[in-house]
């Protein structure tokens, strides 16, 4: 009985994995074949790289890659600074109203970012950051999830280490920089993975707030490239999609083990 259920578990897992990965597999299939071969699933058809060439020439991809790369970097740096300081304040500094403010921050987790799009749009325009990478990244910098994560990480660090550093002459900022941050490294790593993959794939907000190729990230560029008014060529779109996800996909395959361990260590699921 237990053996049967174990096999059932494995079977279910494999089935889910196949369902999950099939779009990606199809994209792979389509990208390397001509459109008619791709949709007919002609298994004997020859492979071609022509789709990539067409796709590459069809849009300023290098620019998009650069924009996405800069965007995730800006967001990550902003998040690290803000979540570190806020997490430290919530973990180790006592100030009036701390619990209440922390609950307010946590409430932010319940609000879908899409709900705030109009308000964020107005705010970004007021700040004069419309159609700039900083404008795209700004709304995500004070991440409630990140603050919560950092607070938990800092709270788990033994208070004696904090005290020892203070005795050795550190002020609060020195303690934060020399004790808390290095000891929370696994948490930073895990959080960076989540943040980078989220913002690499983010679409709706960048679509709204960017207006030119100068600032468009990959996702937006890809959607414009694949929009119906440009004519739908499934193979070329697949090729473009593969190019967009390639850096993350390769990074994931290379660092698979570290990814999983980082998540296990910090308990993010």
């Amino acid at each position, binding site marked *: 009985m237990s053996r049967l259920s174990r096999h059932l578990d494995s079977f279910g897992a494999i089935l889910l994995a196949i369902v999950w990965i099939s779009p990606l597999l199809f994209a792979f299939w389509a990208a390397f074949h001509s459109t008619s071969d791709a949709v007919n699933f002609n298994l004997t058809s020859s492979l071609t790289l022509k789709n990539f060439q067409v796709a590459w020439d069809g849009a300023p991809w290098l620019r998009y890659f650069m924009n996405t790369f800069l965007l995730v970097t800006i967001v990550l740096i902003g998040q690290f600074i803000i979540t570190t300081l806020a997490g430290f304040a919530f973990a180790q500094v006592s100030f009036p109203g701390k619990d209440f403010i922390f609950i307010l921050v946590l409430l932010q987790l319940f609000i879908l970012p899409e709900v705030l799009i109009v308000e964020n749009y107005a705010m970004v325009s007021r700040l004069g950051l419309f159609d700039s990478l900083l404008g795209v990244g700004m709304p995500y910098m004070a991440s409630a999830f990140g603050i919560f994560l950092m607070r938990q990480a800092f709270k788990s660090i*033994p208070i*004696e*280490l904090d*005290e*020892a*550093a*203070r*005795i*050795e*002459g*550190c*002020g609060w900022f*020195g303690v934060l920089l*020399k*004790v808390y941050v*290095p*000891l929370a*490294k696994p948490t930073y790593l895990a959080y960076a993975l989540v943040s980078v993959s989220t913002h690499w794939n983010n679409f709706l907000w960048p679509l709204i707030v960017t207006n030119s190729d100068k600032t468009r990230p990959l996702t937006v560029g890809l959607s414009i490239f694949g929009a119906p008014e440009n004519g739908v060529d499934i193979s070329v779109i697949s090729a473009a999609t593969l190019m967009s996800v390639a850096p993350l996909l390769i990074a994931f395959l290379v660092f698979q083990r570290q990814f999983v361990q980082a998540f296990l260590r910090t308990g993010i699921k």
Partner: protein
Amino acid sequence: MRAQPFVVLDGIAKRWNGALGVQDISLTIEEGSFVALLGPSGCGKSTTLRLLAGLETPDEGQIIIDGADVTHRPASGRNLSMVFQSYALFPHLSVAENVMFGMKVRRVPKAERLEKLRRAMEITGLLGFEDRKPNELSGGQRQRVALARAIVAGQRLCLMDEPLSNLDAKLRHAVRKDIKNLQKDLGITVVYVTHDQTEAMSMADKVVLMRDGEIQQVGTPEQLYNQPENTFVAEFVGAPPMALIEGHALSGFSDVPTIGVRAENIALAEAGQGDLQCQVSDCEFLGAETFIGLEHPQAQGLTLKVAGLKNIPAGQVIDITLARETLLSFDKEGRKISASPQK
């Protein structure tokens, strides 16, 4: 004559949400002395040390270190070092980086830093371990790293919070001597918190015995042992502790509520010739001597020391005599009565 002692605690009190932490702590510490804060757990000795370190702020009173009022100065500005019970070594730093941590923070030039590191490693016998991480060291080695970190910067005041409690008994004895020698050689002032009276008695120049957030007695180990201020001190200090006997159980002491007597002043007597008749409860063989626990309805903690191995079956009735001139008298509240009644 020194104008002012090195460290002064004056009327210090600290409460936790209204509950009492410590109160009325007044203490002076001379430069270069070894002071032990002794007491059972929860007596406030660690709190006192943390107040001194600047990790807590007192609600009342004043703390003066080296002539400067540091009552409200943060820990980083007090120029002292500390050894924690858990050692508090930074796990992400190597031994050398741990030891040099404070010097780096205080921007000591690199050459000087390395020179001091080498000396500290030499003193603590850690040469060759500089590049290890704390989790690659044994408990005893970690303890020495913590010591090295405390002495390397040359601070004149070093606080130690039960630094030996995580070591095994044999190592503890060895490190005890090392710490004492180190303190003497470097001429630093050490304030040492412990719940182990043997540690306090063997190392300290001055012992501060605390209970329930208050100081019970301050004195040399010899004073605490021979002239305890009250019955708590008498029962806490010494192994075995002082036995307390109700006065009316002894002829000639009926007007004294409590009599205290040390085990070495109790002797076996011929049957019917002794001061007290007791029942043997257990025998504890310690090698050179045997402690024989005695029971008497009007006494507690009676122990007879006998040289060598001696096995008296439990329940046997024996007579003991007390060396009369050594007896101490305590009043009803347990305080010492200054003059011994028969002297």
